């Protein structure tokens, strides 16, 4: 049994409630306990730091101080939202690096009777604890209904792999931990080169065209590579890709219908929980048709044709195109 302090963040209270609910179900299967930091406040997202510097760090500082105060046995603090995770981790790191910032933030915290010693809370993302602390073997043992045949594009987004402070748990540009996790639960992982690109964050509100461009790139990349579902790990990513898919289709004349599920929902399905328990249906682009692709048995691996000895070596896709042309 592993116990963590838990910082859900504002989005998981409502918009991403299914992320929280599916996580709690999955946690039980994986022997994890989460103790919510009592009376936590908003992390400020990317907004507070735009207007005020010291208050922005003090806002996050209060959460760190509360987590440290309520943390009995040096537990790690887990945040499932990438923006919350980044803000907590970055504040802790910058406070440790800059004595001046630390002095000012702690002076502000003292007005509320709090104090934070940089480095006393170890901030981790949810994906990190599932892939590293729990491990793939334990995940594999919890699987009851593998997601055979379901093609997943694992979408990491920006903030859990970047920036690199004290070494992240995965590569900053081509991360692979969620790929392995999705294969562990039986799913097929498609190549997804845009996996760590930005969803546009708050740009949907400020300059919609910029955001739609970024969302379009991501959707197109996943669909081009044959994905049935995009697995998300951040409420902002999920919201942008799910709720703005319609706007992208209108703007670009496309016809994307690719559901965006939280990776915890997919884990839960594989662990034998029902679709209703996992909150399937709360997404705006319905995931049920895609989930119908789940097979009872693993798909047979496609056998590659042996290349002809007389012809020049060609990339497989071009050969396919040529054989199609010949048939016509």
């Amino acid at each position, binding site marked *: 049994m592993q116990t963590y302090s838990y910082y859900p963040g*504002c989005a998981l*209270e*409502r*918009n991403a409630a299914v992320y929280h609910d599916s996580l709690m179900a999955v946690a039980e299967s994986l022997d994890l306990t989460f103790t919510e930091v009592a*009376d936590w*406040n*908003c992390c*400020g*997202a990317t*907004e*507070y*730091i*735009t*207007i*005020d*510097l*010291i*208050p*922005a760090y*003090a*806002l996050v500082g*209060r959460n760190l101080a509360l987590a440290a105060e309520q943390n009995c046995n040096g537990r790690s603090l887990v945040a499932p939202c990438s923006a919350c995770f980044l803000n907590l981790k970055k504040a802790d790191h*910058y406070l440790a690096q*800059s004595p*001046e*910032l630390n002095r*000012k933030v702690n*002076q*502000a*915290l*003292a*007005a*509320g*009777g*709090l104090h934070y010693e940089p480095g006393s809370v170890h901030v981790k993302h949810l994906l990190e604890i599932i892939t590293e602390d729990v491990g793939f073997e334990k995940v594999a043992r919890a699987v009851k209904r593998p997601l055979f045949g379901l093609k997943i594009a694992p979408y990491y987004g*920006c*903030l859990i792999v*970047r*920036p*690199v402070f004290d070494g992240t748990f995965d590569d*900053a*540009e081509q991360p692979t931990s969620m790929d392995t996790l999705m294969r562990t639960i039986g799913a097929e992982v498609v190549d997804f080169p845009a996996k760590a*690109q*930005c969803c*546009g*964050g*708050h*740009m949907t509100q*400020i*300059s919609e065209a*910029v955001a739609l461009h*970024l969302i379009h790139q991501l959707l197109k990349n996943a669909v081009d590579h044959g994905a049935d579902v995009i697995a998300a790990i951040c409420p902002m990513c999920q919201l942008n890709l799910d*709720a*703005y898919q*319609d*706007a992208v289709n209108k703007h670009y004349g496309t016809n994307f219908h690719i559901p965006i599920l939280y990776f915890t929902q997919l884990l839960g399905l594989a662990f034998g929980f029902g679709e209703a328990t996992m909150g399937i*249906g*709360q*997404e*705006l682009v319905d995931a049920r048709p895609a989930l119908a692709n789940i097979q009872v048995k693993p798909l047979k691996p496609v056998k590659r044709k042996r290349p002809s000895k007389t012809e020049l070596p060609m990339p497989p896709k071009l050969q396919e195109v040529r054989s199609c042309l010949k048939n016509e």
Partner: protein
Amino acid sequence: MDTSVKYVRGPTTHDRTFLEEVIAQTPVDDPRLAYCVQCGTCGGSCPSGADMDYSPRELFAMIDANMREEVLSSNTPWYCVSCYYCMVRCPQDVHITDVMYTLKRMAVREGFSHESNAKDAPDFSETFIDFVENYGRSFELGLATLYHLRHHPLNAVRMATGMGFDLFRKGRMNLLPTRIENIDQLKAILAEAKAIGGNGDANL
């Protein structure tokens, strides 16, 4: 670290150059921005770079050249999506995303933030902050409603009838904000933080 004048290149109009000011107000970056080698890796990595008035590289050259007004009234910092691609790739380890935040704060403080085509962005941030300061939590419905009614009334109607309604129908939107228990403590902390110099020269 000592931030004295050893890396000053541009002409000086104030006691300090614009470059020194930006560095002084960017926590931890000090003084990496001065070591920018103008390689352009940042602009080449930027997902929204094509829509910026100036690429980050250009902007840093302009900062070095003391082009204060042009820098602070450009849309570049506001079009930064905070994805940190540039920051992990920068060979000089400039904390580019943090520099962009510093430029946004300076633009708001000095009244330049309504000059660019991203003129509504500061109000979005301020509306967001209002909810955080009064409730301790963010509030999506209130934020979207207030911000859009103020700036894009047509958008507000479109969102209320389209996506907003869908999210509400799926039970994904709260009608009322949540207030944390110890909001007084948070208010006291933020008031003190502002008094210390949230908007002034942080000198970090």
